[in-house]
């Protein structure tokens, strides 16, 4: 359950480390979820769906980058606009394609895959040996993110651009190109997270199915101090809250609505608990040459 959040929060890291706040992750995630299901619906191949989700997220990321970097728009407003757009657009297309904005038809989902060696480890083999491939992908990408950010020149430049764009510019780095790239990557990762939600979990698309997870991913990113492994850990925590909520609903102890508030309250509590310990990697001011 934490997997989609991990993808999105990793995406958030890329964007924020380069100095752009991306509150549009929620919308990119939702669009990814939708595109994944839509393309799978037409092609019957969930992997093409995943690809579509990544592309869709990347497109929205490009839009966000254009609006905030080239046209110096307000980052939060742009992100919010993207979120609203995604909500409306996915509902609209849902209606057109399947005649209902509530839920689409079910499609071929991504099947769980058992990894032979892992599965046979006693006790925990059951838990970690069998998952949809996307979960394993998530672990790989998380490690990749760390390597890219901290062990490659590209990552060094990303961190420099976010923290001091003027210094990077005078060092001969193309600040704008790096910002564009990173925001697009954040969109692609968010789209991937959305694909997990729709294809990897439920095998259908439902209106607003991201339910604020994009924002929770932002909280995870902050809680994880903008580090890939930290974001992973934080996402696990939030994923746990999410799973807990579903479990409790199944048990029927409390009215469903009350239970549904749990993940959100947990998020607020976590943010509140981070007194002064969260120092962002950038001051998010738009960069211009003069």
């Amino acid at each position, binding site marked *: 359950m934490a997997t989609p959040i991990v993808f999105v929060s990793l995406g958030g890291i890329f964007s924020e480390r380069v100095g752009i706040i991306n509150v549009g992750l929620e919308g990119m995630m939702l669009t990814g979820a939708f595109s994944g299901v839509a393309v799978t619906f037409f092609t019957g191949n969930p992997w093409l769906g995943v690809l579509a989700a990544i592309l869709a997220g990347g497109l929205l990321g490009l839009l966000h980058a254009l609006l905030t970097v080239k046209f110096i728009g307000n980052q*939060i407003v742009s992100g919010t606009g993207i979120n609203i757009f995604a909500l409306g657009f996915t509902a609209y297309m849902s209606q057109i394609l399947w005649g209902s904005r509530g839920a689409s038809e079910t499609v071929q989902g991504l099947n769980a895959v058992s990894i032979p060696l892992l599965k046979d480890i006693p006790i925990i083999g059951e838990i970690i040996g069998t998952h949809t491939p996307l979960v394993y992908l998530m672990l790989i990408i998380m490690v990749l993110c760390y390597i890219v950010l901290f062990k490659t020149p590209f990552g060094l430049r990303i961190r420099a651009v976010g923290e001091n764009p003027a210094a990077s510019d005078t060092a001969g780095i193309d600040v704008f190109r790096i910002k564009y790239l990173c925001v697009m990557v954040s969109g692609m990762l968010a789209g991937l997270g959305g694909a997990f939600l729709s294809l990897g979990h439920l095998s259908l698309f439902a209106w607003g199915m991201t339910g604020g997870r994009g924002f929770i991913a932002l909280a995870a990113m902050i809680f994880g101090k903008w580090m890939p492994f930290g974001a992973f850990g934080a996402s696990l925590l939030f994923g746990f809250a999410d799973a807990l909520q579903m479990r409790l609903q199944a048990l029927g102890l409390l009215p469903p609505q009350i239970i549904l508030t749990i993940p959100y309250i947990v998020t607020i509590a976590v943010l509140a608990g*981070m007194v002064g310990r969260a120092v962002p990697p950038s001051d998010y001011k738009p960069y211009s040459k003069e």
Partner: protein
Amino acid sequence: MEARGASKIRSWLKLGLQSMLPQIIAIFLAFIVGAAVLLATGHSPIDAYSAMLRGALGDIFGIGQTFTQATPIIFTALAFLFAFRCGLFNIGAEGQLIVGALAAALVGISFSGLPAFVHIPIALLAGALAGGLWGFIPAILKTKLGAHEVITTMMLSYVATYLTSYMVNYPFKAPGWVAQTVPIATSAQLPHILEPTQLSASIFLAVGLAGLTYYTLQRTTLGYEVRATGLNPIAAENGGVNVHREMILALGISGAIAGLGGAGEVLGVHRRLIDGFSPGYGWDGLAVALVGGLNPVGVLLAAVLFGALRSGGMTMTRVTGVPLDIVTILQALVILFVTAPMLIRYLLRRGGYKR
């Protein structure tokens, strides 16, 4: 003498229109892109838009609906605007509206036998306080603990939706299948002012509040301090302004305004609390605030536009079968086009060269 007065009004109007030019272009562009979406999915933009127009302004029902829908949007727009002037992003206006509605409904239901001029103000006050609380919490979290208000207001919005849904479906539920509460006492009802539509007196409250908001921001010390904090908190602090206090006040007042809007809906329009009564007024308010900008008239006009979109939208769906969500898409497009002032200028320049 009269000529001077008239020309002064004309130049004031021209100045207002000129400053609104980017927003007007943004709206125009949004409709064009919306038309493209409609065409691409096999619908006729002309049919859709004309149905919208007819639905919104064609008859007394339509006009009534337009203004009825515009009313809560005015509240949420003012809410977003007030916080924005203090440099804060309150995107939880939707939630604040809903808890305001909840509080007002509870007061409306729980008491009876009170005279109207007591019951109504108490209900409104309850709505304002509830919304204010919903704005106060993120404010405290931000000032004392550094939690970003974008996330906290968003989260609280979800909490508000679920909490209210719970209240409507369990403790206060009316008998029957519909997810709604029992009606409020007649003593708590705001009168309908345009029979046979649902337009209620809450619109007067909205317009009055718009004026009050602008007066506060421009002509009082509170407004001065709020604006100073929003523009340059460091310099404001140097000038003795208590920045944290201003932020708390701004978000609290912002939430209270939205809460009042919710109260208005319950007391004036529905006379009960219906689960999911808000089709997203909070988001409309955001778009309207951006479009209307610093101009009270602009906000009111934009709210009417969005109200028209909503009421016309319902007709459009009925008549042409175009999904109602195109309205949401249009709103989002407006926000996106308004976001980047440079974008408009860029497009204008490109357009100029083509000619």
